[in-house]
């Protein structure tokens, strides 16, 4: 461990020490991030890495004593899993302490995909911020744009004036995005567990949904379509038929998944009882989404703290019973069906009207006006170069993304650029469950456990 001051200047000759660009940092001394041997770490860190979450009574602790915690270090081995491992969903690196094939401790080491997106967010205006947000959780970009837009609108004080059509369109896209994200989970979960053909099927169905997104937004991913004030454009002609075609195609395919996976004894053997987490542990670890619901708690922000028009549609919150990897798989499969149910209601209820707020402060003029009006041209130019000013204040808004609660905390100083943009990424928090779910399991099950969390590393590292 070296502090900033102690490090010799020769360490990094490109940094000119005479003009310190980095004023801060000397107050801390950073330790290693890796999993260290038991003799080198504190009791608290050891407990943490072995997955202890709650304070237990002595009898409850004795019941858990099937996995020894006072093992001889000669009998254990610390290995790396990742960052380059096909089942780590990108660049998640886990360090595991093994005794034979049993996992005793686990430590997720993240940051390999860190690109400073929260810092970037402080340089992009509220108009441009969506392009940054959409790239965090790249499997549910529309939900990320949505939470950013909702937070910005709340700061602007226009959150009650968003036209109904825009709100229903946002819901339509959000639910379709949930379906595409869960379909990709089906694919990767299948692949991680050896059902390789499932990867092709899941990917194929997801591509159908993305094709619809491409038609609506112009892009398969990273749309920047949901913007403060509404959405970027109206739905294209024939959108209803496209959605209906999706809804007609999917039930049959989902039934095929059930045959391929749910009904298979091998599939059940690999998932049932693996990576178990209890409800109190999930709450203590602030796990949200399918992980929390797999423990039997019906907590879904769409139902419990409704946003958009979710209180006007009927759907069920799918919960599990055992908190294991199988429940999390089944919840996501059934959530696809629930999303389809919501989408059908949206098709019936989609109102006509504006797709964005008619507030000149945040809304650029229609394209046609620019050719004929100098004022419209200036307005368009100003809004896309300078952006719009947002009143000073701070706000936290959260919605239910496919992975759990995605939150957006924005501090505005009254300018057109956020002073601070923080994203509460569900995967970042959910990954903390790994040491707990892994404890006492087999190495082979580690893959199933990672997969059942469904982490997106773009959002873990941001």
């Amino acid at each position, binding site marked *: 461990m070296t502090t900033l001051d102690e490090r010799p200047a020769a360490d990094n*000759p*490109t940094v000119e020490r005479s003009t310190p660009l980095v004023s801060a940092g000397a107050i801390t001394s950073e330790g290693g991030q890796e999993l260290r041997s038991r003799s080198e770490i504190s009791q608290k860190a050891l407990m943490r890495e072995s997955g202890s979450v709650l304070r237990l009574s002595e009898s409850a602790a004795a019941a858990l004593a099937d996995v020894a915690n006072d093992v001889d270090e000669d009998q254990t081995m610390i290995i790396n899993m990742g960052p380059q491992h096909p089942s780590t969903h990108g660049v998640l690196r886990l360090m595991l302490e093994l005794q034979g094939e049993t996992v005793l401790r686990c430590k997720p080491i993240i*940051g390999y995909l*860190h690109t400073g997106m929260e810092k970037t967010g402080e340089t992009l205006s509220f108009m441009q911020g969506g392009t940054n947000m959409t790239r965090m959780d790249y499997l549910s970009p529309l939900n990320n744009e949505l939470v950013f837009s909702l937070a910005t609108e709340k700061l602007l004080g226009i959150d009650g004036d968003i036209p109904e059509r825009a709100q229903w369109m946002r819901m339509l896209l959000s639910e379709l995005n949930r379906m595409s994200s869960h379909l990709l989970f089906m694919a990767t979960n299948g692949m991680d567990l050896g059902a390789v053909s499932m990867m092709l099927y899941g990917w194929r169905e997801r591509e159908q949904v993305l094709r619809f997104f491409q038609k609506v937004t112009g892009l398969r991913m990273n749309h920047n379509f949901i913007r403060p004030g509404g959405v970027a454009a109206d739905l294209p002609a024939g959108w209803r038929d496209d959605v209906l075609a999706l809804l007609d195609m999917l039930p049959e395919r989902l039934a095929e998944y059930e045959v391929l996976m749910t009904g298979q004894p091998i599939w059940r053997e690999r998932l049932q009882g693996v990576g178990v987490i209890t409800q109190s542990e999930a709450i203590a670890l602030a796990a949200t989404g399918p992980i929390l619901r797999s423990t039997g708690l019906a907590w879904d922000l769409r139902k419990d703290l409704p946003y958009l028009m979710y209180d006007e549609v009927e759907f069920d919150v799918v919960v599990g019973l055992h908190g294991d990897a199988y429940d999390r798989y089944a919840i996501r499969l059934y959530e696809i069906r629930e999303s389809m149910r919501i989408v059908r209601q949206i098709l019936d209820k989609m109102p006509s009207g504006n797709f964005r707020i008619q507030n000149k402060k945040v809304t650029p003029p229609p394209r046609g006006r620019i050719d004929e009006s100098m004022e419209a041209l200036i307005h368009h130019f100003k809004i896309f170069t300078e952006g719009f000013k947002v009143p000073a204040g701070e706000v936290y808004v959260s919605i239910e993304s496919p992975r759990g609660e995605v939150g957006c905390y924005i501090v505005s100083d009254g300018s057109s650029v956020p002073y601070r943009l923080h994203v509460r990424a569900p995967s970042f928090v959910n990954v*903390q469950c790994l040491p707990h779910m892994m404890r006492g399991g087999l190495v082979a099950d580690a893959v199933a456990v990672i997969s059942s969390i469904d982490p997106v590393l773009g959002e873990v590292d941001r």
Partner: protein
Amino acid sequence: MTSTEVTGAVSSGVTVHDSLGQRVLFVDKSVYVATITNLYADGFTMCIDLTAVDYLALENRLLPAGVVAQRFEIVVNLLSLAQRKRVRVRVQIADGESMPSLFDIHPSTEAMEREVFDMFGVAFDGHPDLTRILMPEDWDGHPLRKDYSTGRIPVQFKGAAS
């Protein structure tokens, strides 16, 4: 349970504020842990988020009367599942000050406090494993500080033979 009951237990050092319809508690650092413990007892059992803001470039910000502005602010978002309510706790701390860790009350803050430490250089006392989480472990500086400029930081090559 109302907010007045929440603050009644530790009345001094807590200022209740409304920010765009969201309940915010400005809490003095000395009663930070006590307030979070009380809120836990009141049902706010889930620590959804913990982050920080560096107010270096925004000295004249609006704060309720009685709250002394400091450079950093720790922002904790708590959630009550039973009451379907959120509360936000904001604590002012000066540069170089450390915060007590919430790990013993909310184990979920482990990664979040490490992130704040990594990005802002705010240390948390009593955290089991306070190391950098997103940046490499031998990185210089804390990127989300406002005096950590973008675009002018030389690329740091670590461990390469010169």
